[in-house]
């Protein structure tokens, strides 16, 4: 070799070359691969969004089940009314019935049941008070012998003993 190497002598020459038509073929190949990769990425994006949506629905089912009787829009209102009345923040079953009826059908049914129950109770008390007075009159009319025979019958009554 020469004593001092001259870079200009060799210039930008390299021994590397490519097969004929390589760059044209390569360009097509690159475009095909790039488009395929973009489609793949889009699909992945859709799958990811779908997974996210289903996770949100699942979380919704866990934290807000269908069994919640009080409508979510009604809940803050109830809490607010409680504080204005000076009560504790705990909402009791009896408190709920004192509020104006909501549009929730289950609540309306509950209210009706409560009213019916109250009606039944008051009727039963009235009937009971009537029954007591007639019984007392009937017992007063009984003779001592009749009473004695009745009490002897009561001794054998398995429900009274």
């Amino acid at each position, binding site marked *: 070799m*020469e004593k001092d190497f001259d870079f200009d002598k*060799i210039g930008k020459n390299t*021994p590397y070359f490519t097969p004929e038509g*390589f760059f044209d073929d390569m*360009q097509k190949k690159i475009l095909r*691969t790039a488009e395929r990769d973009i489609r793949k990425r889009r699909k992945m994006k859709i799958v990811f969004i779908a997974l996210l949506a289903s996770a949100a629905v699942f979380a919704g089912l866990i934290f807000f089940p269908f069994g919640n009787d009080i409508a979510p829009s009604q809940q803050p209102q109830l809490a607010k009314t409680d504080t204005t009345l000076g009560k504790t923040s705990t909402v009791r079953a009896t408190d709920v019935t004192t509020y104006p009826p909501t549009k929730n059908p289950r609540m309306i049914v509950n209210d009706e049941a409560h009213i019916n129950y109250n009606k039944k109770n008051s009727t039963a008390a009235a009937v009971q008070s009537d029954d007591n007075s007639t019984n007392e009159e009937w017992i007063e009319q009984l003779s001592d012998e009749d009473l004695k025979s009745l009490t002897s019958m009561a001794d054998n009554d398995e429900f009274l003993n």
Partner: protein
Amino acid sequence: MTKDETIYRVIKSDREGGFRILLDAYQKPVYYFIRRMVVVHEDAQDVMQEVFVKIFLGLNKFRGDSALSTWIYRIAMNESLRFLNKKEIKVVSADNVHDELIDNLKASDYIDYDNKMAVKFQEVILRLSDKQRVIFNLRYYDEMDYQQISKVTDTKVATLKVTYHYIKEKIKKYMVEE
């Protein structure tokens, strides 16, 4: 308007059309940059495909803050080094990789063995470290200025200047010795 500005403008309105222009402009220089790094044509082909697919997918993120050429060469450099690192893992050490690259240069397809001087010159370049080869190739073959090389390699301009002159002296020495 520079070549890069034209490509960038087309890309903004028509990504695929802009990418075709980019391929026309950069396919050859990028291929030869990679080829000088990995030597074997088939390897250079694989790496180049990876580079341009990455460029195409990353076009949306490219804001034009740096020159398009800098961005493209940076991706090409990273992919070439990644390829060589993978090889390094397979063949145990960096020295062995360099030996393998020199062996490939001596017996591979698509190399002009009649041009003995050019083959010898490449063999000497292959004895440099990967980073030194990147700097030398970008400066000597791709004629980048130190500012551009600094952006591609994340190295200070002063360091690059010193390194390039050191590399040149090393090459001269090798070429004279053998």
